[in-house]
């Protein structure tokens, strides 16, 4: 079901938690809500589920005003962060709950409920655990029970709050792939909350990055990675160098570095910040250059350099493929020039400037680098 969220504002006792959320989600989309702790992800999810109501804004699902519906009538599958299983019921009864609580008129007959529960348990691959109680299950198994229970009501919208939060890294990876398949197979609209950037990027059609009650950016993983909309997003994605830069007469000047390959953004002159990832920088030995290699580290297929640039407190991180690094033949203490192949420029006030696009020169440099 297509979901349209408009202007949602939510305060808890005057503390604003959501400050105007606008988001549309297409039917069948798998969307990840990504953001720091306390940014309002859970609150947004709870509003969609009907467990919380906003002070302002609207939620429309397939043209219907959802805020007028109570949780019971939204038919939303909600998977809680801590599973929220019924401890006094067997796995089977947990999963059957959503069917057995229906009013008699719309409740399926006993045999049918039983069959559907079996099918669901098989779907989440825990058919053999049907008679156990939640206390007797592992974290991953509980997660599956919670999911099966949510799926039992045949939701058109599935909401998951940090579904893999409590699981170890390997199981998370397996479950990720499995959840993606499940989503595709059942054709629901799915929204899940996560802290884990890899998880969001790997799993979702679209990633929504939230900060402090606002959406910083919503887009496909590629869009967000290649064109972060704000310094916040660029920083949030991590592993990025921030270089002070100057915009003058349409040219980008980065002290100590060669920024000729970065297309300077159109717009006002003045100070700006260039966000550049370690693998978007090339190093050229140059005895007159002010930058010095402080440290180098081999990490399998690539070499990482820490480069001291005068005027910068933290060293710039540079990553070269092993092959390119061998050709450069650089050592600790060598003077180098930084060649920036690509980057994103933001004006000093954080106002996003049109993102820098790759220029033809970049390709030349890339080719030269190898």
């Amino acid at each position, binding site marked *: 079901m297509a979901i349209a969220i408009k202007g949602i504002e939510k305060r808890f006792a005057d503390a604003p938690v959501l400050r105007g959320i606008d988001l549309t989600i297409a039917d069948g989309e798998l969307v990840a809500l990504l953001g720091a702790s306390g940014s309002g992800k859970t609150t947004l999810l709870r509003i969609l589920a009907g*467990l919380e109501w906003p002070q302002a804004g609207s939620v429309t699902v397939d043209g219907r005003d959802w805020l007028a519906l109570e949780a019971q009538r939204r038919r939303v599958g909600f998977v809680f962060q801590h599973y929220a299983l*019924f401890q006094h019921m067997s796995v089977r009864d947990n999963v059957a709950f959503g069917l057995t609580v229906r009013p008699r008129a719309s409740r399926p007959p006993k045999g049918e409920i039983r069959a559907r529960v079996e099918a669901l348990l098989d779907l989440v691959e825990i058919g053999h655990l049907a008679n156990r109680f939640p206390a007797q299950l592992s974290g991953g198994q509980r997660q599956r029970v919670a999911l099966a229970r949510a799926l039992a009501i045949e939701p058109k919208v599935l909401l998951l709050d940090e579904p893999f939060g409590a699981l170890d890294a390997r199981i998370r990876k397996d479950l990720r792939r499995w959840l993606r398949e499940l989503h595709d197979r059942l054709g629901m609209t799915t929204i899940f909350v996560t802290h884990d950037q890899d998880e969001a990027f790997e799993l979702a059609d679209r990633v929504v990055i939230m900060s402090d009650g606002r959406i910083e950016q919503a887009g496909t993983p590629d869009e967000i990675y290649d064109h972060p909309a704000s310094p916040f997003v660029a920083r949030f994605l991590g592993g990025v160098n921030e270089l002070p830069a100057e915009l003058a007469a349409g040219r980008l000047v980065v002290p100590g570095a060669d920024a000729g390959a970065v297309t300077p953004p159109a717009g006002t002159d003045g100070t700006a910040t260039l966000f550049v990832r370690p693998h978007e920088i090339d190093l050229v030995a140059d005895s007159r250059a002010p930058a010095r290699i402080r440290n180098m580290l081999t990490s399998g297929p690539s070499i990482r350099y820490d480069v001291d640039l005068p005027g910068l407190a933290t060293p710039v991180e540079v990553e070269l493929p092993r092959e390119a690094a061998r050709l450069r033949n650089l050592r600790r203490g060598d003077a180098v020039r930084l060649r920036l192949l690509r980057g994103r420029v933001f004006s000093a006030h954080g106002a996003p400037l049109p993102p820098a696009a790759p220029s033809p020169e970049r390709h030349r440099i890339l080719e030269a680098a190898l």
Partner: protein
Amino acid sequence: MTAAALRIGLRSRRVLPGFGLTMGTTLTYVALVVLLPLAALLLKSAEIGPDGFLRLVTGERALAAFQVTLTAAAFATAFNAAYGLLMAWVLVRYEFAGKRILDALMDIPFALPTAVAGVALTALYAANGWFGQLFEMAGLKIVYTVTGVALAMAFTSAPFVVRTVQPVLESLQPDIEEASATLGAYPGVIFRRVIYPVIFPAHLTGCALAFARSLGEFGAVIFIAGNLPFKTEIVSLLVFIRLEEYDYAAASAIAVVLLATAFAVLLATNALQALAQRHARKG
């Protein structure tokens, strides 16, 4: 349990040491404080022989006292089952002015000397008391009736239900109720199928304790009861009267039956709980 079995239990399950010491202390305490007096009581009543015992406890006056006590205790417990649950619910679920005070008031029946409670209740519910007048107008007599006995019992045993249910209600995670709601369950169903099953064992315990306490309540009851033999005389008073008459045999025989009843109630409760929890904990 043999020493070997104890040691295995110790090795395989306990995290904290000191099993031997704590178990020993507890057993000694139970033997001295609980079992010894009970044994003396049983011995005393055993002296009478089965026939005499039966005659003493099935005497007309004794039977009437049992009936009064059991009936009143049953009503008091039924009332507290509902009222105590409601009170615990209100104290756990809502925030309101004076909540702390109300919470503290819950313990008054425990803290108050029962005789004081008895006098106060009698004064309130006497035909010319504040509440008594109102009931009188409705044609209801409370003082010197079984209703009064039940009232006094209910007053002194109410905290048992409140205080056993309260912590369990508090420990309930709100997310299981929210999960139920998203699965389509409305409040009534949520209470019946999700909340009550969890608090049921505690509720049952509270009710059983309240009932057992009511059976033996003395101080609070005798003032309001009027103590008319065959009408409003409770068992513990009868025991007391027999003691006053130096009829130790009758006193201990009746006391033993009272004891057995209370014990049976607690035992049955434990059995019921074991049944209810059989799945929830282990498999």
